[in-house]
């Protein structure tokens, strides 16, 4: 049995009570209102709605995994399995949180959001299945290539990248430095770093945001970048 189908069954037998609290917004579009009514129902109509929703989520998950898969080296049965797991977990999240749907969008857009998030999180975890991945490396020789500096013109950018490296060492906190090195030098996806550090996307992004701001301020203060929109050709 596929994991996703198992989870559908779990939802069908366990969440009647939670769905009792579904608010019906009179401003809802007819399609969204129908979804809420069906999911708040009991018996065969609700089971049918859950099954249909799950099938929609599986199709959406397949589409999203296929869209991202080529960049993540996920193929074949693994890709299909990831899509089913994402759809199943999304269905559980939707039934748990359906009381939070306020009708600001179509119900299906709100529901599809969960499957996209599940795919993101699962791909983040998948990154570490490759034992060669590590947070320990700190290969500064990758920096020019990371930003597309032309090796033939090294004399023009050597000082700038030296200043970036110095600023990373002197301006950032150890945690900011760790995140900068992982994402910029080691090419670790942010969602994978979230998994590794047991954190969340917002916290990691905020630390990287602050690191970027500090580094730029330092480079501007030392004359390497312009304060205004600088665009060297």
């Amino acid at each position, binding site marked *: 049995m596929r994991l996703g189908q198992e989870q559908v069954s779990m939802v069908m037998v366990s969440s009647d009570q939670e769905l009792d609290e579904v608010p019906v917004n009179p401003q809802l579009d007819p399609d969204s209102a129908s979804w809420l009514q069906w999911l708040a129902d009991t018996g065969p109509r609700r089971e049918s709605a859950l099954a249909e929703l799950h099938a929609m989520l599986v199709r959406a998950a397949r589409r999203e995994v296929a869209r991202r898969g080529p960049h993540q080296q996920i193929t074949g049965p693994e890709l299909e399995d990831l899509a089913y797991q994402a759809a199943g977990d999304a269905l559980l999240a939707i039934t748990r949180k359906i009381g939070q749907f306020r009708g600001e969008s179509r119900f299906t857009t709100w529901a599809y959001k969960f499957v996209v998030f599940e795919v993101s999180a699962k791909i983040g975890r998948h990154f570490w299945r490759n034992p060669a991945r590590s947070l320990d490396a700190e290969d500064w020789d990758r920096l020019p290539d990371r930003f597309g500096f032309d090796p033939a013109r090294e004399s023009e950018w050597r000082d700038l990248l030296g200043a970036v490296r110095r600023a990373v060492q002197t301006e950032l906190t150890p945690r900011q430095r760790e995140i900068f090195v992982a994402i910029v030098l080691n090419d670790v996806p942010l*969602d994978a770093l979230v998994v590794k550090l047991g954190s969340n996307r917002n916290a990691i992004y905020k630390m990287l945001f602050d690191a970027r701001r500090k580094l730029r301020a330092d480079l501007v203060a030392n004359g390497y970048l312009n304060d205004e929109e600088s665009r060297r050709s």
Partner: protein
Amino acid sequence: MNGWTSLDRFLRTDPRDVGCSEAVALLHVYVDLVAAGAAAQERYPGIAAHLRACGPCGEDFEGLLAIVQGTGQS
């Protein structure tokens, strides 16, 4: 884009950027507006700024928009 521009763009931060939590919380609303051809960027400039700067949230936005448009919902 050359290295100077690429580095400068990466380091440049937008004070309107709302961060991941708020962008994620309203992503479905933003996507429906974009799919409907409405002025999502004008209505939610902080989310637009975030989606430009945050790779994972930008990827989620692209994915959700593709699903919504691909299912003929828009």
